[in-house]
């Protein structure tokens, strides 16, 4: 590995961490799309800043861009407060308009602006190490690493200082207000951090990857845990993992680094979406199937409990009377047999003692909805786990 390669991976990882922290809170507060809006609407701020300074990495540029991100947030909230349209429509109206203004500004001044819309949207991480920070001729490393590093430091300090407040206001805004934390200050604080992070990161990785780095790791982590701290660490982990493996994927394919980082994030999300232990698609589908089977089992047991006559309890009667298909009746009967709920005696099904008491308990539960009696049943069945 050359030092440039190490630097690229370092920058990408720092960007990933800096994005994951505000991203987690955005996802939890159902404001994920604000990051998309900000990432697009910083364009006019950037262009105007560039007209003034003619330097792509001047601090004024970053401040102006972050300001236009905040303007987006304020505009969205203003439109939303008028009650004329819903919040999502407000977002969808504001940022394309601001982005269009940015594009037109660039196009009208194409001759003296060396600002490429593609570069803003996509970034070029591969060139980041060549823009060095030189003080008195001494090389202090890549400029973007310093910029995003200081943003990350500020974010971490703010996170440590206001963790409790953020946590309370994210999960219970009413309680937070009652406790005396101003929701507006926290909201705009978070928005400012998101805005500054977006601006700081766009230079290195481009606007779209910022959105991906904010939302995807947090969403992936949210599928795995309910604990805020764990979620933060997991999303940071996913971000860094995608940064490093994304770099090598891009290296191997000779393609855009930010594109391949996003792709890795996508693959990670897909895997977790499918296979997450409790919230994954497969386990959700499995649980649904299991619950359906157990409801059938309960119906079946109740039926047996209600009928003492032999012909109602004949095994072939299942298909006729309860109108289940063969496969389903077979799996229900198998499940009941496995749990020693029933005995089959010459094709006549009868409840065992265990089955009778189970059925009675279930009836009690259904009638009273009092769940102390069914604690022991929870072991065997999904249904009663609520």
């Amino acid at each position: 590995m050359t030092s440039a390669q190490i630097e690229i991976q370092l920058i990408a990882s720092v960007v990933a961490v800096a994005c994951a922290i505000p991203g987690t809170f955005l996802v939890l507060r159902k404001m994920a799309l604000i990051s998309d809006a900000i990432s697009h609407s910083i364009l006019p701020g950037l262009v105007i800043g560039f007209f003034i300074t003619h330097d792509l990495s001047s601090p004024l540029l970053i401040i102006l861009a972050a300001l236009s991100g905040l303007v987006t947030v304020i505009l969205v909230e203003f439109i939303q407060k008028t009650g004329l349209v819903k919040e999502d429509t407000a977002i969808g109206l504001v940022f394309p308009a601001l982005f269009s203004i940015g594009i037109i500004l660039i196009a009208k001044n194409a001759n003296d602006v060396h600002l490429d819309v593609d570069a803003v949207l996509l970034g070029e991480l591969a060139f980041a190490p060549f823009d060095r920070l030189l003080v008195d001729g001494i090389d202090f490393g890549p400029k973007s690493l310093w910029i995003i590093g200081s943003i990350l430091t500020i974010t971490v300090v703010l996170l440590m200082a206001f963790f409790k407040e953020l946590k309370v206001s994210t999960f219970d805004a009413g309680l937070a207000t009652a406790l005396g934390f101003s929701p507006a200050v926290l909201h705009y604080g978070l928005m400012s951090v998101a805005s500054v992070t977006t601006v700081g990161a766009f230079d290195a990785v481009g606007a779209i990857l910022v959105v991906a780095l904010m939302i995807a790791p947090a969403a992936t982590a949210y599928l795995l845990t309910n604990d805020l701290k764990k979620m933060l660490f997991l999303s940071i982990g996913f971000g860094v993992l995608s940064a490093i493996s994304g770099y090598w994927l891009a290296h191997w394919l000779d393609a855009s680094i930010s594109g391949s980082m996003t792709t890795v994030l996508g693959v990670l999300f897909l895997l977790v979406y499918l296979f997450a232990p409790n919230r994954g698609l497969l386990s959700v589908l499995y649980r649904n199937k299991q619950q359906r089977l157990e409801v059938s089992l309960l119906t079946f047991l109740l039926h047996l409990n209600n009928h003492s006559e032999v012909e109602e309890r004949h095994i072939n009667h299942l298909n006729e009377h309860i109108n289940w298909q063969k496969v389903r009746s077979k799996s229900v009967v198998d499940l009941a047999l496995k749990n020693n709920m029933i005995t089959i005696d010459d094709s006549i099904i009868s409840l065992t003692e265990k089955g009778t008491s189970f059925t009675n308990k279930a009836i009690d539960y259904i009638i009273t909805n009092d769940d102390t009696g069914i604690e022991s049943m929870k072991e065997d069945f999904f249904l009663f786990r609520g």
Partner: protein
Amino acid sequence: MELQEYFRLVFTDYTLRTITLGTAILGAICGMLGSFAVLRKQSLLGDAISHAALPGIAIAFLITGTKETNVLLLGALISGLIGAFWIRGITRNTHLKSDTALGLILSLFFGFGMLLLTFIQKQPNANQSGLDKFLFGQAATLLARDVWFMAIVTGVCLIILILFWKEFKLLLFDADYTKTLGFNTKFIDILITSFIVLAIVLGLQTVGVVLMSAMLLAPAAAARQWTNSLSVMVILAAIFGALAGVVGTGISASQDNLSTGPVIVLVAAVFVVVSFIFSPSRGLLFRQIRFIQNRKDLQLHKTLAFMYDIAKTHEDKSHPHAIKILNNFHGFTRKSLQKLESKNYIELDGQMWSMTQNGYHFAANLYNQQLSTNND
């Protein structure tokens, strides 16, 4: 090129006519379907899907190697549909909310698409230039064939819309009721989502991935302000969309260095702002005017109520009183007294005022809504 010259050229110049027609049709279909997206609270679905279409374009190019627009758009359609249904899947099967699902699909698909595009660019045999046009759109590349295609799709869309109008409307406003009536809500839902995706894909070539969502949203959001009826809203949105397309094309053609997509979006944004401010029933301006009006009425009633309190202590209700005694009381001015007089509630005589029979009756029932509405 001057604007007048442009309007003359629209009818004579082939390219300009094609582009203008194309953007007008696009605006109309986007406005039509956008109304449904806005009312279904899926405004940002358009943004997500237009980004999600990008990998489809790249894969279609990788597989076929052609730059045939229709083939690329077919790829875009497929990957847009995958994106749209994955969003549904995420919100339905996990506890992630729709904003997260939209943001995820948007950024992940777009990033993957960029990966593919840069991968294609580095291929030795690539004649890939032209794929970029889908990012920001180039209305100038519209051919008469594309416009015909758009017109046909719009026609089909219109027929479906008319055929399923009742179902769409029901689903829009009361999904549960629709279900209990026995309609296949899933099918209707999929049908409308597919058409929204189709409209988005059609627009990619003209306004591009990034700005497509505004094409879908802005005309509908503007139309929403003028009416409460769905059919009127859909028609209005189509007209707004078409107008934005025509005017935007006109402005961008009459100036140098102005790409069509952003100009159309800005024109549509102007429509939205105008509608927000000037719409008679919902607009901010008239709302403010009504607000001030109500406040004035309230002040007037307050003065009247104060006068009533004084007048009712006298035998003769129209006993004159000095205006001076109103002085320590807020909410009365010379003007408001004149207004009360013009309404025939009081009579002014020099420095004195007296209540009329009419005014006394009105003031007595001021806070009795039923009576006062009867009297109106």
